[in-house]
């Protein structure tokens, strides 16, 4: 049970992650996140030379920073950090300045000309109903350890008690004091998370798995040859 004054925190045990995208899809359905927009996203990184090839995954979401750059950047005070540790957007105050998106080092907040600012709030509406965030609940690999940091029996506190020393925040050089920490992630993968821009949907494409780029504007994209006619030919009698 959360305490009367909960402090919501999350630790991800990424070594367990299987890259299944369940967290992302759960989030999209739960929060009706449009296509090409994100509150959570899982990155892939394939590396090594055959046959010593490894794949790493990195689920990302809003870090609920204690020193949140988005909050400081917003000219309308539409972003607020609550006493429970969650950084939330007031949709009525957002007038679409998009400064928040430019300020975020974690690609976690999006604000474009077709939308108001939007980001993960640990599924606050689910917390209100006594439920876990959608990503936490569904994770088949038990990567997400979420809970009230003030409750020593919360999954978060229990995990941190056991593994806290092995955890780190992403991009510590940004000094934003994230409430989300990671255990066992590949440090290189932090480069894949855009700074000052929401996640690029093109980072889903398979050709980006081996890259540590964060953005895929057209010049950086693979030019795929066009298949003029994919229709299979009719069987012929030619010998191999």
């Amino acid at each position, binding site marked *: 049970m959360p305490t009367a004054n909960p402090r919501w925190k999350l630790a991800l045990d990424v070594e367990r992650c299987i890259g299944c995208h369940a967290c992302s899809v759960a989030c999209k359905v739960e929060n009706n996140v449009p296509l090409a927009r994100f509150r959570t996203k899982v990155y892939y990184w394939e590396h090594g030379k055959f046959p010593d*090839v490894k794949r790493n995954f990195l689920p990302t979401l809003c870090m609920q920073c204690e020193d949140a750059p988005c909050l400081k950047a917003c000219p309308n005070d539409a972003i607020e950090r609550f006493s429970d540790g969650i950084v939330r957007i007031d949709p009525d105050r957002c*007038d*679409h300045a998009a400064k928040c998106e430019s300020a975020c080092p974690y690609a976690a907040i999006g604000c474009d000309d*077709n939308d108001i600012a939007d980001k993960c709030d640990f599924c606050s509406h689910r917390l209100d109903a006594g439920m876990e965030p959608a990503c936490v609940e569904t994770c088949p690999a038990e990567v997400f350890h979420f809970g009230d940091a003030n409750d020593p029996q919360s999954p978060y506190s229990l995990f941190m008690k056991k593994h806290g020393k092995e955890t780190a925040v992403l991009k510590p050089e940004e000094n934003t004091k994230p409430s989300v920490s990671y255990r066992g992630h590949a440090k290189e993968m932090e480069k894949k998370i855009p700074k000052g821009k929401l996640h690029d949907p093109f980072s889903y494409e398979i050709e980006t798995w081996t890259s540590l780029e964060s953005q895929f504007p*057209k010049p950086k994209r693979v030019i795929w040859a066009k298949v*003029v006619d994919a229709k299979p030919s*009719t069987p012929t009698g030619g010998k*191999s």
Partner: protein
Amino acid sequence: MNRVDPKTVRPEQSEGSDHASNASANRHPQRERKFLKLRASGESSTTPQSPSRRTAMKQGISALATLALGETIMLIPGEAAAAPQECRTTRKELIGQRAEKRRISGDGRRKNDYKKAKIIKGVCLNCSTVCGIQGYVIDGKLVKVGGNPEDPNNGKSLCAKGQSGPTINTNAERILFPLKRVGARGEGKWKRITWDEAYTDIATRIRKAMDEGKPEEVAIQIGRSRIPEEMTRFLNAIGSPSLFNHRALCSSNKRAANYACFGDTDWETGDFANSKYILNFGSNFYEAHQGAIHVAKRIIRGRFDNGAKLVTVDVRCSNTAGRSDDWLCANPGSEGALALAMCNAIIMAGKHDAKWLDTWSNVNAAQMKVWIAKYTPEWGEGVTGIAAATIRRIALDFAAAAPAAIAFTNRGSAAHYNGFNNDRAVILLNAVVGSIGAVGGYCYGEEPTRVPGRVFPNPLPTPPSPKAKSAIEDPVEWPLANKWQRMKVGQIVYSGLKEGRGKVQVYISYTVATPMTWPEGRSLTVGVLKDEKLVPFHACSDVVYSEQAHYADLILPDASYMERWGLDTRNNMELRDYVTLRQPMIPPPGECVSFVDSMIEIGKRISPETAKYFAFKDHEEWMKIRCAGLTPRVGEDGFEYMKKHGVWQDMTKPKYYALYSWELTAAQMKGARVDEKTGDIFRANAAGKEAKIGLMVDGKARRGFATPSRKFSVYHEDIEAAAKDRKFDEDGGKGMPEYFPVPSIAKMKSEHLHLVSFKWNVHTQGRTQSQKFLTEIVHHNPMWINAKTAADRGLKTGDLVEITTYRPHGHAMGPGAGEVLGTALIPVWVTEGIHPRVLAVSNTLGNLFAGRAATATNGPRQDIPAWSDSVIAEDQDVRDDIWWDTRNGGTGAGFNINAILPIQPAPLVGMQGWYDTVCSIRKV
């Protein structure tokens, strides 16, 4: 022209017109024909009729006001209905309306108020893994599903596909009305009809086949239907054996191997969470596998909470292989050789469990040592390409962890010409180290599919098994296909029809897209489905307009798995019997009807003889009758119990550890005879014939294995007999799990490569591509090629190759071995994560229909009256935001490779050799 999605456009490409016109000029002709074009053609001769009373009552009359009965429409990809920019003219207007709901479906800013939610239990069916789910229904809408915490297999977890479930129900391109073909088959011209017309048409045709004494000419083609008992009752009532399934395309070699080795069931239940060593031959349980999440969850616990090692054998670096402690990239088709070489290493080092083998195996430790001698690790290195030292290291580590050690398989080892023996050899590894049935070992339970019939009995009378035979359903060339269960040889259905092996008068398809997913799908399958002489009548039950529906004469709009009933089960990782219940969380929209309800209606109409087997109102009442069987076990109304919990688990028996050593009960021993010399226990069965029912071990009567010897069958006489009967004289027919080469692979020339397929973690065969959140993640499937192989051929990522495939060599294969089957053009993705001689293309993508997400066609829903905003609203996501549309600079909808994968059933069992295809490539 400004076609570029504002959210994917980058500053350097804001010259959108140039970009868009380039894309359009180079587009694939099939992509050129854009949206599902649905237009009233005015060609109908049928007078519009009133909607049926039943539906009008169910949905309200407004739901039907869109497409008038009898109105003719086109359901084929037509030319672009409108330029994408038109649908974005409201974009700017949204600014300043931020407090309003952004999405035109009205739920963009929705915050689910879970205090108002009604929780309804159910079962997922976005793949066949059978995860328990619970739906949250708020104001009559299913807003979210989660795992059913009471489900012993998945608990509160679901994968991405499971989470995507609710989007199926509200798919803006769902079929909402029964449709009848009016143009040529495959032309895509339809008119709306009533359910009564559809049912009467089907029932009349079935009756005709029965009256002609040809009930076997009524066939149902299924994919993952998960309603086996309902299907069987329907066909048995007709007297037809022709249930054409997909098991041979999926898993029949693996299942046959489990039956041959231990007999009780066809699927192991590894005790992964308690394991110390997990040796995985060709399963990709982090992404696919039957029971993926159930297995993955426990393997992760085994690895990270119990210190287990994970070693994966695969030709491709799947997510599973890429996250394993070791990835062994063995040569394709050599998995059995690798397992035998490991057995050899263990036995020669004396690390095997001789006592277990001497007690429980029909080949004892001394005999095993003689037989295995030829399969040395050095021999294994030559066949597999894995160093002998590595084979020894892993084999001995595996043995050291035993009995908390599991070696198991899936399609990577099984979908080969020699897959049956590959899998038997892998199972043998467990026997050699004595981990069969052990804590942390290779466990199994009693056959789960018999549990629903036993605990939830079907209403009487039940129809008898059919007397009629079908040479398509039971082909003589593959005598083990139907030996242990009716697995059949699904890939020969269309060649069988074409060659006159059998006929169909009525062909009904359900939860399947054979043009996409069958080998030679868009070639042979489509050719047969289009041919009205071969398939005179085809009714297709589907949720969206699929490639299967496109070649039908009638389309029956189905309910989704969140809108229908059904009992389901599978192996339970907690090693207990269990059964789950699907129930509607919401009613089906428009005129959609669950296919079982349709079968009941048809069954009632065929004749009084068939009607008597369907003497219940609907599937719900059928379920209610069956669930009454549970009442005495749970001490409350069984139906209410199942609706409340969604699952029942039998806690009266101990967990299925070491099932073979369970003692026979006094009841089982009644009238039994013990052969004092051998310790074998016999008892007369109902027919008066004596059968072996167990073994005396340690002075106790024990059940043993469900094999002829009641022992673990390394050798199996039935396999040897079947091989002799079919004149299959390769080493695979000797009765022992010998390694024998794949003939097509053995004959490969140096310029040839292997072509394999695979499944993504966010997709299931051909039926998930219509779901926007899944297809957003994976929509493009270029061909994987090894970096060195690509460099040798001057290929880089994005280059186009022409791939040519060849027909297979081997026992009972069709004619034309080594001849060209077909060619296709496909771009390549260069990776270190694949065997140098293997190419891989996913089996999922390249849909021609199934809506805008599936076909990567951004833009408005067709401006025709087939959709109804009052039933399912237009979806702004698929209207505005399909960023993978090539016109937005995207990569498109992918490629379907199955058209050029040859039909190649493995000897005796008949499983498709998905991974035996030989090909050559040429840079274009």
